[in-house]
């Protein structure tokens, strides 16, 4: 994916062909519920961008809206299903994946997509998250990682970097953070990708690949919380957020290169960065397939 970092002319054209097919207004008309815009997200919040990218990915694979269910838990990011004009289940905090399991198993024909936040997904929802991944249930999870509890006003999240500030970490966070994508991979998800939004095309592509993957797909999107996180951590404007991502992330390929070749001291610093890119893509039977096989075997 590294080649997509630069804006070469050919790519621009390609991108145009891909993304230009439907513009923001058409997107809104086709995919969003009437009368819900402008949305509730703060100025510059990445959640709106995540919504746009998701809809474009859906457009690319021509997803059947009448056969699609979006779910979420509670949080800013979890408000997203309310905007999309499909069946949607805005559940309780942390439990969306368990609800989704019931939806998908019951009707395997439904496309099931979950929006979740870092706290929702791996804070309170950690257990459902790892079990859904273990089962490799055929759903797509789009996790908006803003490193904070946004909706409730900026409390520390299990993803908040050590030393960062939050309303419940007013003297600086003393806990080491989770790497959500890493957890998804260990637990058994078959498609895992992480991107920050400074590269909008790649996440869109990953969402598309995730939707297409027959199994649990996990797409972690690092997204600026311009209110709760930024205010407390002196990230003044969007430029500073970009620097933030630059400082703390590295393309997976580069990372692995550095791991092998960089000198020890340099590596110690690099080590702490988060890998971005498509981190895992594997073929494996989904829970639904395994269940269906069993039913065929025992049915009367």
């Amino acid at each position, binding site marked *: 994916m590294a080649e997509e970092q630069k804006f070469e002319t050919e790519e621009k054209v390609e991108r145009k062909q891909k993304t230009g097919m439907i513009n923001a207004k058409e997107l809104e008309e086709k995919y969003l*519920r009437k009368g*819900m815009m402008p949305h509730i997200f703060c100025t510059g919040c990445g959640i709106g961008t995540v919504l746009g990218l998701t809809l474009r990915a859906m457009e690319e694979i021509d997803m059947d*809206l*009448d*056969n699609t*269910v979006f*779910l979420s838990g509670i949080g800013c990011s979890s408000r997203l*299903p*309310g905007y999309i*004009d*499909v*069946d*949607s*289940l*805005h*559940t*309780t905090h942390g*439990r969306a994946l*368990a*609800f*989704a*399991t*019931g*939806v*998908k*198993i*019951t*009707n395997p*024909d*439904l496309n099931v997509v979950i929006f979740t936040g870092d706290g929702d997904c791996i804070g309170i929802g950690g*257990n*459902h998250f790892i*079990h859904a991944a273990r089962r490799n249930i055929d759903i797509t999870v789009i996790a908006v990682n803003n490193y904070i509890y946004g909706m409730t006003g900026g409390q520390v999240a299990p993803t908040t970097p050590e030393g960062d500030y939050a309303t419940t970490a007013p003297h600086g966070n003393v806990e080491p953070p989770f790497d959500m994508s890493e957890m998804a991979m260990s637990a058994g998800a078959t498609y895992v990708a992480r991107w920050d939004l400074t590269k909008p095309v790649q996440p869109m592509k990953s969402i598309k690949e995730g939707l297409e993957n027959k199994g649990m797909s996990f797409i972690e999107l690092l997204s600026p919380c311009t209110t709760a996180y930024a205010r407390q951590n002196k990230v003044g404007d969007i430029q500073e957020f970009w620097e933030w991502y630059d400082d703390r992330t590295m393309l997976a390929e580069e990372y692995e290169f550095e791991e092998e070749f960089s000198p020890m001291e340099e590596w110690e610093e690099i080590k702490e960065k988060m890998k971005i890119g498509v981190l895992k893509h594997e073929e494996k039977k989904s829970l639904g397939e395994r*269940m269906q096989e*069993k*039913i065929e075997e*025992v*049915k*009367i």
Partner: protein
Amino acid sequence: MIGEIDLDKAKKAIGDRSQFIHGDTAVAYGALLAGCRFFGGYPITPASEIAEKMAELLPKIGGKYIQMEDELGSIASVIGSSWAGAKAMTATSGPGFSLMQENIGFAHMSETPLVLANVQRSGPSTGQPTLGAQGDVMQVQYGSHGDFAAIALSPNNIQETLDLTIKSFNLAEKYRTPVMLMISADLGHMREMVEIPDEVETFERKEPKVSPEEYIPFGKGEYGKEKVPEFGIFGKGFRTYVTGLTHDEKGFPATDDQEDHDNLIRRQVEKITDDREELTDIERRRLDDAEKVIISYGITSRSAMGALKEGRNRGEKLGYLRLKTLWPFPKHVIKEISEQVDKIIVAELNLGQIYHKVAEHAECEVALADKIGGEVHSPEEILAEV
């Protein structure tokens, strides 16, 4: 998903027409006959056998069984399944029931039909896992935060356990609401003969007959009961937004609006309490000339039957009244009976729960024959309070 052929399949999976089975199995059979095709559970004594039976039989008839990672997840999966179109259930006992409370509240708020069988064990906390109790009957109505109206049924024999399981599914669909089937471990693990019914009357979910644009998922019902909206299951183009937030009739968040909230919650409560009389299922014995009446439910009513017989033998003018419907609480029946008798004795396997409801509505003296610790009342223990 359910039809005549399907019932045949369920009967085939169940097997013999007459069986000597325990309450847990009866719940599973009842569920299959009612059309339940999804079970999401988590093991817990003494309810595990319901899950085990469902795990065995559901796949045989194309239904889905899943053991979730915990009870929070199992009730969640059931709600998800219900919206995806299945009649769905879970079963648990005290500790699991406590864990489910948040999502039970969500089921009320989202008006999701489902059945939850609570095979009660002796609590609080881990308590006495294998022993029976009736200690969760108030929790049904007050276990989750905020206001809602519960429906809960309580059978006292194994045939009735099967029958009331079917009824639970029917009420869940009719009222678009979670229904609790409350039995105690004693009944869950007690065996009696049941007859598998040939015909089963089921209530099928009312789906909207209007266009998605006209469909009101959380308001007035059009084709069924007025306060019960139709249920637009997922995947049929209704594009319903289901949320646990306060919402307007269309389902959209209305978290700042006093009126929307009031309308929503009152309708949800009233759709059940308006039908209190219709929902009330009561067994009465020897009330004609009774001066005192024993009120009980579930397994305890078997002891009350013993007490009735014994008391009458001794010349006491005793009567017997059994609540098959615990919630909505049949207050009108209590009021009425309390005007006829001098004294009510409430017998239950707890330190007094339904007793408080009876005391609230009775006009006569009310005594309590309570018992905890895992044994059912002997008839004598009830008579001691008469």
